[in-house]
């Protein structure tokens, strides 16, 4: 037993060490072809033509790999070559500030030392903002693939790397999944730099820290973690960094990939990482001492640590009056309970506890159910599954045909099913009410949790009635309290109960009242 334990810890330790040594890791996991191509070259040649050939070789003569050869001067002959990837680099930048600069500047005459030439080119000729010198092929290839321009010059065994990343991105548009009436109308897009600037613009403080990680051995996706120095607990930042380093994927094509790697527990229906497409929400979270993770190519930022109540806070809450926001928030919790328990309570009442229903209602229900061939549970299951199918069809269908689905759905679920005597009208009301209630949860991934658990609750209600539902609730709450998100208890303002945090938890107090508790940020609260 003891042996096993030690072995486990050492292996984990070595894993950790390895991931720390990132350049070694990189060489190890690069696909073999590129690796060999890069390894066979030993440094950068001083002849331009040779460098071009090598880079072409590494890139496998790719179609979009562009080489632009220019002659700096003829006596003595000095050639230069600019290389970039078509589409990743900005054409205007390259032609105006690299090619034009080289061709039009007054070149030094007579014999020049390579060192002098280098300084001249860098300091007097290249007019692009950011130029670095590189002599490592791996770095050169990586910056080429990031959209930068590589410039080789005869006689200089180094490469100029000009920052020309550009190309086409979706413009900043209105958020589609978190809509507000009065709030900011911008949302993230797929460009990491744009997203960073959206956040930076809102917090003009030098305390904002941004750390870069490159994830995915093949995709090399830029990922940054955002936090505010002095507000965010160092331990949380370290924990995030450590988990980010342990990601061993070959590709990261969205923030959900990162989420699955870093989340605390996989075997749960509840999300332990929050995501948002709104920069203003990210700023709020950073101010509360949380860490934001932005992934290049994904319009959704991840927020850790998070808690259950955060998924009930809509962006709109902070832009409306506090009284309305508070009432709406309480309403959301209520709607969440309905979407979780609606059908199961109905099943339990109809199947086991008819005596708990007021007499007039029970008579009307019994009359409705008279011709129905199924027990309440099967009836509810049919309706719920039909609804899930319709919902899925509505989401996957091309928008043009979506209308047809909703018409068919309304007919099938509604009138026709009742008239055919397959389901009772009361069941249609229950299922429809449940569905509408489930749309009030601002966070889609939490609404999904209720959607899955609803079926478990229905099953419990069908076997044990109200008692089964209660036991299911106890298990659910116990499970929720056992969850942690980056070390902080998931159900936190409720259990452990922190009354002060309900200023922005179950309720939303006015800003001036909250200011008092704002000194006590997320990080400083004592957390189990």
């Amino acid at each position, binding site marked *: 037993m003891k042996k096993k334990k030690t072995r486990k810890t050492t292996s984990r330790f070595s894993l950790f060490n390895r991931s720390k040594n990132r350049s070694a890791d990189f060489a190890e996991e690069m696909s073999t072809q590129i690796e060999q191509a890069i390894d066979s070259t030993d440094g950068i040649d001083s002849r331009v033509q040779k460098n071009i050939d090598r880079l072409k070789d590494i890139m496998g003569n790719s179609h979009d790999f562009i080489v632009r050869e220019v002659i700096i001067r003829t006596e003595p002959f000095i050639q230069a070559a600019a290389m970039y990837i078509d589409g990743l680099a900005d054409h205007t930048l390259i032609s105006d500030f690299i090619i034009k600069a080289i061709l039009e500047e007054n070149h030094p005459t007579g014999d020049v030392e390579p060192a002098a030439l280098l300084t001249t080119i860098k300091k007097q000729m290249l007019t692009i903002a950011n130029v670095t010198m590189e002599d490592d092929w791996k770095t050169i290839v990586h910056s080429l693939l990031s959209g930068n321009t590589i410039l080789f010059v005869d006689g200089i065994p180094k490469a100029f790397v000009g920052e020309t990343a550009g190309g086409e991105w979706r413009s900043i548009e209105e958020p589609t999944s978190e809509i507000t009436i009065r709030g900011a109308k911008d949302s993230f897009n797929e460009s990491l730099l744009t997203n960073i600037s959206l956040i930076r613009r809102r917090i003009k403080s030098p305390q904002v820290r941004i750390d870069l990680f490159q994830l995915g051995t093949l995709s090399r996706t830029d990922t940054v973690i955002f936090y505010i120095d002095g507000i965010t607990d160092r331990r949380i930042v370290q924990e995030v960094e450590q988990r980010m380093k342990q990601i061993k994927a070959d590709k990261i094509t969205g923030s959900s990939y990162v989420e699955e790697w870093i989340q605390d527990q996989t075997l749960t229906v509840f999300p332990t990482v929050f995501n948002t497409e709104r920069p203003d929400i990210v700023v709020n979270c950073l101010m509360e001492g949380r860490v934001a993770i932005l992934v290049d190519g994904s319009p959704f930022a991840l927020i850790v640590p998070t808690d259950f109540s955060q998924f009930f806070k809509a962006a709109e809450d902070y832009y409306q009056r506090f009284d309305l926001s508070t009432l709406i928030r309480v309403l959301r919790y209520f709607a969440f309970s309905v979407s979780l328990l609606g059908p199961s309570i109905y099943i339990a009442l109809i199947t*086991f*506890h008819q*005596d*708990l*229903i*007021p007499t007039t209602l029970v008579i009307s229900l019994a009359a409705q159910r008279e011709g129905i061939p199924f027990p309440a549970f099967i009836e509810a299951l049919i309706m719920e599954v039909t609804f899930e199918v319709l919902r899925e069809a509505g989401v996957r269908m091309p928008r043009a045909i979506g209308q047809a689905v909703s018409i068919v759905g309304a007919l099938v679920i509604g009138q026709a099913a009742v008239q055919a005597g397959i389901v009772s009208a009361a069941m249609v009301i229950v299922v429809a009410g449940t569905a509408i209630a489930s749309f009030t949860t601002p966070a889609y991934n939490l609404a999904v949790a209720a959607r899955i658990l609803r079926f478990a609750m229905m099953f419990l209600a069908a076997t*044990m*009635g*109200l*008692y*089964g539902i*209660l*036991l299911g609730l*106890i*298990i659910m*709450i*116990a*499970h929720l*309290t*056992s969850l942690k998100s980056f070390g902080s*208890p998931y*159900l936190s303002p*409720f*259990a*452990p*109960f922190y009354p002060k945090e309900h200023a922005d938890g179950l309720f939303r107090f006015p800003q001036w009242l909250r200011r008092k508790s704002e000194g006590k940020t997320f990080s400083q609260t004592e957390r*189990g």
Partner: protein
Amino acid sequence: MEKASINPFQLFALMVLFELGSAIVITIGIEAEQDAWISILLALAAGVAVFMVYSYLYKQFPGHSLIDFSQKIIGKYPGWVLGLLYMLYFLYIAMRVLRDFGDLLLTSTMPETPLFVINFFMVMTIIYVLYLGIEVLARTGEFFLLLLLLLGILANMLILFSGIIDVNNLLPVLGNGWKPVFQAAFPLVLNFPFGEIIVFTMLFPYLNQGSKIPKTGILALVFSGLLITITTSMNIAVLGMEIVSRTTFPLLTAVGKIRVADFLERLDAFVVVTLVIGMFFKIAIFTYASILGVTKLFNVNTHRKLVFPLGLILLLGSVAIAGNFSDHLEEGLDVVPYYLHMPFQIYIPFVLLLITIVRKKFSSGDIVGNNDAQSKTQRYQ
């Protein structure tokens, strides 16, 4: 012992849920007839005193649970045996409470379900939660306490508004003199529910602020005691002495009488919720204490290994301890208080207290001092 810590509010929540657990739904102190509330208050006062003894003992050996300090006080082997007896006692009471619960649920809402099935589902839930540990149990308790209080306030308001309270049912006060009041309070009400708080001596070491134990415990006892008093008086006021003394489940009957504005009626579900949640915590705490003790006595490295086997024993025991409900009730009224509750809740702790005080006097605090140092190191490990 698992590495966990709970805060005073969580301990408070667990204690209140534990006390209310079964006492709020069934009748206690009914031997005093309409003076049941006086009996309960008397027993509450005595219960607070008994709790002071437990917390005094813990104060002498901070960081040590009941079975640890009993070994320190009466020696290693006798203490071990006493610990084992306590563990059996806790497990047996857990069985009894589970049986109570199963039978109450059967008679009140699910008359056609077999007892075994009801108990099976309850034990499965308890196994799951206890497997997750004391922290999870405590936080779940916190959550449900708030829920139950809301429910309780609502139910009381509705009873008030439906105008079914008849204060005359509570009169005359002390119509039969003090004797029946005392007879009801001691030992029955003292033992159940107040004396049962001894089970928390197993959980004290988990509290992150050990010095707050007396305050938290007394607060929880008084709070839950008052709630029980109010509920019992309310039941009697609504139903009258006649009905209360005949039903096993008076709260259900009382709440069933609620009728407000012609549509708020049949709120029995409130009572079922209270019953299930309260009983869940009561059984879970007894079982956890027993599991924890066995883990320590037999040096098992984690309590998780024992959750399932002891849960199974609990389930089978709960069905097997009595042939039928009336046997079960008879044992509960005639045997258990005198031969189990009194010794384990009152006599043994008092003997331990005496030994501690005597040893403290004669050894000029030496042993206690040593223990303090040891316990401190143990706590920080």
